[in-house]
């Protein structure tokens, strides 16, 4: 049975399956949410499936189905990403719907790798803790294989993610990282690039470390609590600099940080906790996506009516009074204020 963990408000459905996992049966997870229909609600859930479990929903969906695929490949990992088209369109990116914006983050310590996509080398010499610039990729299905440097494409991949669906219009980050238990894996996160209110910034925490559940604290206040690998939590906050640290869930045991983060207005800042607690190499990685800001909705630059152009004479008389007779002017202003005030 699926482990049944659901995380509202996380766009994209993500399924991680190891080894000889088989996928069969009807699609009970998707169907109540509009599978085969508009799928509007489809992007709001995230299911994590334990190793070796038999899924009770259908992973073998049609290749023409945009919702996703699930494979159980020969070696380590099958990974299926699905994101409904409606959600993709709501992300508001400028990309055409047949393209997607994809970044790749390497979060497996101590292993420089070559990343292959569909059998072609995509990112040679990719070092831990590095992030690619956003790539514009044709939407579609990608088989991602990650080899120790120089061992591809004919050797055994360290990480393999087959049938990664890159939906049109999406902004996503593929993260190679360790599972909670310390095994190399890969997760696709769909980045929320919806417009921010003027003055706001978006901050997202993603747990991709070989570590138990954590709380992310902002200015020493637990903000994202009980975050587990490979999940995320996000909030829109007032722009500014915050001090963030990571503690073991429910404790004051700091495992990472504190780090000062500049949450720039109109920018999404995504913070990854990666590495391994056991190997004492936990670290933070930061990805930013800018250009999400909105402008103020006006400039309310006057309130008393003293400069009313429809009574120009009054304006200049008053201005003169202000200049020459400060005390008198104060009285006048008060009188004008009483009569000319708006709500």
């Amino acid at each position, binding site marked *: 049975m699926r482990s049944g963990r659901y995380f509202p408000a996380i766009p994209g459905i993500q399924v991680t399956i190891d080894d000889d996992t088989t996928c069969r049966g009807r699609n009970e997870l998707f169907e109540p949410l509009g599978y085969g229909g508009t799928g509007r609600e489809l992007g709001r859930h995230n299911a994590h499936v334990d190793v070796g479990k038999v899924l009770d929903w259908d992973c073998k969906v049609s290749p023409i189905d945009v919702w996703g695929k699930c494979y159980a490949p020969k070696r380590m990992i099958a990974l299926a990403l699905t994101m409904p088209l409606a959600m993709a369109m709501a992300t508001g990116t400028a990309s055409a719907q047949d393209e997607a914006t994809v970044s790749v983050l390497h979060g497996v310590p101590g292993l420089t790798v070559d990343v292959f996509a569909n059998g072609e080398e995509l990112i040679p010499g990719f070092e831990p803790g590095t992030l690619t610039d956003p790539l514009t990729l044709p939407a579609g299905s990608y088989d991602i294989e990650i080899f120790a440097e120089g061992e591809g494409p004919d050797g055994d991949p360290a990480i393999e993610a087959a049938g990664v669906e890159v939906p049109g219009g999406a902004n996503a980050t593929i993260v190679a990282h360790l599972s909670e238990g310390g095994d190399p894996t890969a997760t696709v996160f769909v980045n929320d690039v919806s417009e921010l209110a003027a003055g706001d910034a978006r901050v997202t925490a993603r747990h991709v470390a070989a570590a138990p559940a954590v709380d992310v604290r902002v200015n020493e206040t637990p903000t994202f609590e009980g975050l587990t690998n490979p999940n995320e939590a996000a909030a829109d906050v007032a722009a500014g600099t915050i001090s963030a640290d990571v503690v073991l869930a429910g404790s004051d045991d700091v495992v990472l940080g504190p780090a*000062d983060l500049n949450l720039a207005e109109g920018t999404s800042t995504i913070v990854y906790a990666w590495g391994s607690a056991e190997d004492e190499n936990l670290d933070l990685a930061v990805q930013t996506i800018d250009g999400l800001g909105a402008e103020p909705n006006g400039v309310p630059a006057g309130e008393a009516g003293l400069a009313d152009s429809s009574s120009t004479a009054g304006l200049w008389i008053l201005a003169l009074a202000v200049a020459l007779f400060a005390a008198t002017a104060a009285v006048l202003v008060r009188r004008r204020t009483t009569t000319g005030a708006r709500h």
Partner: protein
Amino acid sequence: MVLAGCGGETQPGAELPAPSPDTANPQSPRPVATVEPELAGLEVPRSRATPAPAEPPDAPVSVEVSAINISAEVVPVGIADDGQMELPPHPDVIGWYRFGPTAGNGAGSVVLAGHVDSRKYGLGQFVRLHESQVGDEVLVRTESGRDLRYTIVDVRSLPKAELPLADVFSREGRERLLLITCGGEFDRQQGYADNIVVTAVPA
């Protein structure tokens, strides 16, 4: 266009001077690599995913338009609770929209706005803004002591509803300075009908 008064002479739907296409703007989004479907022969740019240090901008601290006797302190402002640009309560103090570009940054729209008047303090410095003329010089001093000179290229009055906010607060294109206050007819319910908008470019 130079307006003699605070309003009533607006061209409906008038637009501010269009920002020039930008060729060397460090604030522009980084170009994204395009991967051909075959994914062949591609060098993907990448960088260390380390937290970016917060670099405080060199904020403007004063603005002068000597031709119309404006000399005012400038303070950083953000967003008011109603989603409009926040403004200093005292009309002799001008607000710089701190989420937009700063003066001397080289790109985008530097917005300085002030109340034309206040119930508490009376008329403000920007009451004379509409008297400015194309060609007048604007001097902006920044926190680090830089003096930046701009030349006014446009003076106009726009009904508030027609203020092209996306242009006014644009972070792209070549640098320009916008001085904004209120003007036009005053209504007790709605406040002033217009925004006075003065556009200047680096001299």
